[in-house]
């Protein structure tokens, strides 16, 4: 896993909930050339679940049942990251980094034909970060 590309947050502002590795960011650049603007929706459940799904932006309709976790800043564009609100209740104490690994299945996620799969790496927010997020 490579370092986060996301720059650090200004002191006092809430920390970002999501980040992306260099490898995943490079892949997003290539995927955007092919598919246009992109989005992530974090999946739950079986088979290819518990994984971030990447779609052409707007292909997956988000609504009140979803939480917008943040936007990944990739070069000249951003990629919004979403999760269902019910799932967020169980995930909210963890910081998520979107990484990429060699792999195959991916539901309808657009990276699968490249022979790779986006993967979530998680860490707990620190107490300081958690204080800022709760404000």
């Amino acid at each position: 896993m490579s370092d986060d590309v996301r720059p650090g947050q200004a002191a006092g502002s809430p920390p970002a909930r999501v980040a992306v590795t260099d490898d995943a960011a490079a892949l997003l650049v290539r995927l955007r050339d092919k598919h246009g603007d992109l989005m992530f929706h974090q999946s739950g459940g079986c088979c290819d679940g518990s994984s971030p799904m990447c779609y052409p932006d707007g292909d997956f309709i988000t609504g009140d049942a979803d939480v917008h976790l943040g936007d990944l800043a990739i070069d000249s564009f951003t990629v919004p990251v979403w999760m269902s609100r019910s799932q967020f209740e169980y995930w909210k104490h963890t910081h998520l980094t979107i990484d990429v690994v060699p792999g195959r299945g991916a539901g309808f996620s657009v990276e699968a034909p490249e022979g790779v799969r986006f993967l979530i790496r998680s860490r707990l927010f620190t107490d300081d970060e958690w204080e800022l997020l709760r404000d």
Partner: protein
Amino acid sequence: MTVYAAPGTEGAIASFRPRYDHWIGGEYVPPANGQYFENPTPVTGRTFTEVARGDADDIDRALDAAHGAAPAWGRTSVTERAIILNKIADRMEEHLEELAVVETWENGKPVRETLNADMPLAIDHFRYFAGAIRAQEGSISEIDGDTIAYHFHEPLGVVGQIIPWNFPILMAVWKLAPALAAGNAVVLKPAEQTPTSILFLMELIADLLPPGVVNVVNGFGAEAGKPLASSSRIRKIAFTGETTTGRLIMQYASQNIIPVTLELGGKSPNLFFSDVAAARDDFYDKALEGFTMFALNQGEVCTCPSRALIQSDIYRDFLADAVARTEAIKQGNPLDTDTMIGAQASNDQLEKILSYFDIGRAEGAKVLTGGHRAELEGDLAGGYYVTPTIFEGKNEMRIFQEEIFGPVVAVTEFADFDDAIKIANDTLYGLGAGVWSRSGSDAYRAGRAIEAGRVWTNNYHAYPAAAAFGGYKGSGVGRENHRMMLDHYQQTKNLLVSYSPNKLGFF
């Protein structure tokens, strides 16, 4: 003990073609775009065949074939359709061992499971729906003395089915058998991790089904799954997989106003009440096996009993025995009939499981056994193996809330009945659950209180036809494995008939 030779090697009872095209109109058809993708076996990580990489053009051709076949197939008598389903079952039974080896090579699961569970269940499923369709009757309602409502079952027409990779043939058969019994034609997309064994089956039964009644298009979800699920030329879509894709499929279905059935996984609680340990007898032994069922099929089961809840007063002793039982699991060559746990189905699946080991530890869960990748030797060194793992922690931890889809169980304790039910139901999902107790009334009350579609009581991981299977809450919509599945593949035609010679008198 038997060790089957790897497909394609000397002494093997089954072999694969070097390349597989789509199965459309009863024959192999090359992909319109000429592209193929490699299919590795999880057993060794090495590619054993290549498979057509379908796209919207191939889905269209498969839909053409299905629409060509559907009217005549829908008009066949239920007797004829039942005979065909029974013949498919007989043919599979004659080739059970081959199919089992093929499925193990495709998916990585132990051959003792494919020999004794996957294939026998798939065979029985065709026989069950052959019987169910013969026994199905329409109904009449007598509105009044001269007015009768007749209800007929009619096939939907052409339906789409998207199959998961954890039981490639069995999950395909769960969907195919009722759809075919009900008189529908099918376009089926297997998972891209396991595209081949279903084609092996289609070839085996090719002479039994009219061309075009079942069509198989392989490819990636974004390229082949999406055009199938969003097509205006299907009358229903069935999907087994995860929640985001499930929602996406519902969104597509809403655009065409077609029904969906969804099976989207779970985080199934397995409850062990105090009286389980009242004696060290056969029942106690059975309960320990029930705990260890989390490792069945490498944990790649939507109903994996991945949360074990144990009553406080037996917690320490029962858990110690459960750890010992788990450590006795024999991992190795999936083609060895003594092997109890095989390979995870894909590299990304392996990576995901390892990432959950990280988050589990970070959240403070304690690893009681396992917690790492299993390094096997020789040919198996490139395969995707994980050591069966027991975490001890709290239900709010992410390893208790997310489906890891690996041989991983998260264990916690409960104080009393109400506490057990509260923890069991504190989940987004409601597919399966297990209840273990010597008290019939306690077990019954627990089973009724748990919000899940299937509560195994003093057993686990049995999947007989005639027991309805499906989810509450986020686990999906619809039921499989039961004759009520026929309703998911049929329209209701109502003829409302007046036998009265008299006008209403309105006009």
